[in-house]
């Protein structure tokens, strides 16, 4: 016989009560853990986007509002392709790395994918030097040079990461990871799309973004096949430097007054705002759990004390001191808190990992560090809520308990 046995046997005797209290704690902790885990990875993705794309600027049709950077071209509005040349031939710094895109839906084996027309850099690269001899007096800028010595295969595979491709023939396509996996497509295969047969010259590595469901082809080929005309859905300006990108927005707005120019920061601002809202929501949740959950626990423990009045009186008659009576109830609360914390962490993590990608569009992984946090909160709330009932139990008059039948 010891304290653990006393607490555990009593818990098992009143299973319904235990399950109710534990369930309440588990529910609260599940919600907290799921929200925190998803928002952590969402924020990380935003930070990563800002980090890797932070210097990028998007030129879009005015009517478009953007939530996802990677789906910037997935809408029905268009801008003239000649905007690309306007940008390249301007004296604006940092616009030499452009990626105009036209997105057309296609069906492959009853699945819909996006046929994305992209313009290889080689088709407009030289025009960046058409601004005249004045280009030599421009400031150094990012100072990174591309000597064109990247092997073609590597250059093509880096499309989704670098956002730009150097060369692409009219009948060549690059296939996203998801498309290749589902349709069992490999390099060198032929694929008919919109009445034309293409050769797959590369299968792109997985990115975890909508790019995995794309098939990339030459922009002019896609325009011709879709009869869209000389238009694009967006122009991605791949900046190399955030400072230069920041200065670009106003200049590009002046150069292309009929288009909308957004930075990645503006695109992710929505996500950042959402993340902040979720963060605040999780704090409110925490407060609700502490107050409501705590009140529920306090209520359940008070009821438990009432139920066990005679038992408490007996223990006192047998020589139990007041601190032991308190410890019995606080230990029970701590144990329930522990069960709730562990269960809540496990279920919350599973929910986050399975639902997170669908809700937030980012891969979500378990966060072991949150387990400690969950336990501290659940046990802490359970203990705090049980303090007064436990103290009341220790102050019971055993004689009064014996008088009750």
């Amino acid at each position: 016989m010891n304290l653990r046995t006393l607490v555990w046997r009593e818990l098992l005797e009143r299973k319904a009560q235990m399950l109710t209290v534990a369930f309440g704690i588990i529910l609260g902790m599940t919600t907290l853990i799921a929200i925190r885990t998803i928002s952590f990875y969402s924020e990380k993705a935003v930070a990563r986007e800002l980090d890797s794309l932070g210097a990028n600027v998007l030129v879009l049709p005015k009517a478009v509002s953007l939530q996802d950077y990677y789906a910037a071209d997935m809408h029905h509005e268009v801008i003239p392709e000649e905007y690309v040349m306007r940008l390249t031939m301007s004296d604006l710094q940092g616009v030499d790395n452009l990626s105009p895109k036209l997105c057309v839906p296609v069906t492959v084996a009853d699945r819909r994918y996006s046929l994305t027309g992209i313009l290889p850099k080689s088709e407009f690269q030289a025009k960046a030097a058409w601004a005249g001899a004045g280009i030599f007096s421009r400031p150094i800028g990012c100072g990174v040079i591309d000597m064109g010595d990247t092997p073609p295969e590597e250059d093509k595979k880096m499309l989704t990461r670098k956002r730009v491709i150097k060369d692409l023939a009219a009948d060549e396509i690059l296939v996203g990871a998801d498309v290749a996996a589902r349709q069992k497509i490999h390099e060198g295969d032929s694929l008919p799309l919109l009445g034309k047969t293409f050769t797959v010259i590369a299968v792109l590595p997985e990115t975890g973004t909508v790019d995995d469901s794309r098939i990339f082809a030459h922009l002019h080929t896609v325009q011709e096949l879709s009869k869209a005309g000389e238009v694009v859905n967006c122009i991605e300006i791949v900046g190399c430097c955030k400072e230069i990108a920041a200065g670009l927005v106003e200049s590009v707005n002046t150069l292309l007054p009929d288009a909308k120019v957004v930075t990645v920061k503006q695109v992710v601002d929505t996500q950042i705002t959402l993340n902040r809202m979720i963060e605040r929501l999780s704090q409110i949740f925490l407060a609700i759990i502490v107050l409501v959950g705590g009140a529920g626990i306090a209520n359940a423990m008070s009821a438990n004390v009432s139920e066990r009045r005679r038992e408490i009186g007996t223990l006192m008659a047998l020589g139990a001191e007041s601190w032991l009576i308190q410890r019995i109830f606080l230990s029970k609360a701590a144990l329930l808190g522990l069960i709730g914390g562990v269960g809540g962490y496990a279920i919350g993590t599973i929910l986050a990992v399975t639902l997170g990608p669908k809700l937030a569009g980012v891969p979500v992984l378990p966060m072991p560090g949150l387990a400690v946090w969950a336990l501290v909160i659940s046990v802490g709330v359970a203990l705090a809520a049980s303090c007064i009932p436990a103290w009341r139990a220790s102050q019971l008059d055993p004689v009064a308990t014996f008088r009750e039948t």
Partner: protein
Amino acid sequence: MLRRRPSPAFATCTTCLWLIVGPMLLAAEARPNPWPVGTSPGLTSLAKASEQNRYAYVFFWKAEGEATQRNRDAFDAALATLANRADAISVCVAAPEEKPTVDAFKVSRAPMPLVLAIAPNGAVTKAWPLDFQAATAGEGVVSDGAAACLKAIQNNKLVLVSVQNSLTAHSDEALQAAAGFLNDARFAAVAEGVVLDPADPLEARFLADLKVLPTTEKAITVLLAPPGTPVATFVGAVSTAAIVAKVTDAKSGCCPDGKCGPGQCCPGGKCDPAQKSTPKGVSK
């Protein structure tokens, strides 16, 4: 390939240099005509202008309209003043016979009307999309050195500009270093060299753009990369290794794949577009 712009005082000195570094340098050869003849009226006209060492101003247009007429009027007025230097060529991009011309310049999707100034060596020295101003027409005529650099840049090559003459110190070392770099197997296919005399008045504007003083006392070597930004400037003696190191640095440096952050751009860590730099070649 090394191209040089000869001037009288310079000739004697460089003859010696040629003897020293001869095997490593290719002799200057007659410039081939960059345009094929007979493929289209536009390209034929361009070839003719190049042959005659004249500039060609090409007026590309798609359809008649107010903008086309306005630009054409300005074009005609400007070319009348440049008649001694440049030929005027009109190309309708919608005309089937001009498809080779359009393809050569890849302007099928360019904003129209478009005016291009083209040097005899085939370099596009200035472009005026949508709005051609007669007053700015003269900006299309650049120095031979600038044209040579633009041509190389437009072929997506690095350019090593050696600015030196008989009076500049460390000229030999600088030229040797340049030759060494241009003959290096890693860079031979992607780099070209141009030699300029800092005292050549025709190159004054170009040198000013490169921030090189005509009175420089030391040889200056400037490394340019597409789309024309100066990547590095070496004053005085320089080694091939130093040039190679700079290129390697700039190639792999601080902004791979666009992952730049504030304060991280550029070798040296500064990326302020507004930053001013002092002209090179000022004696100490």
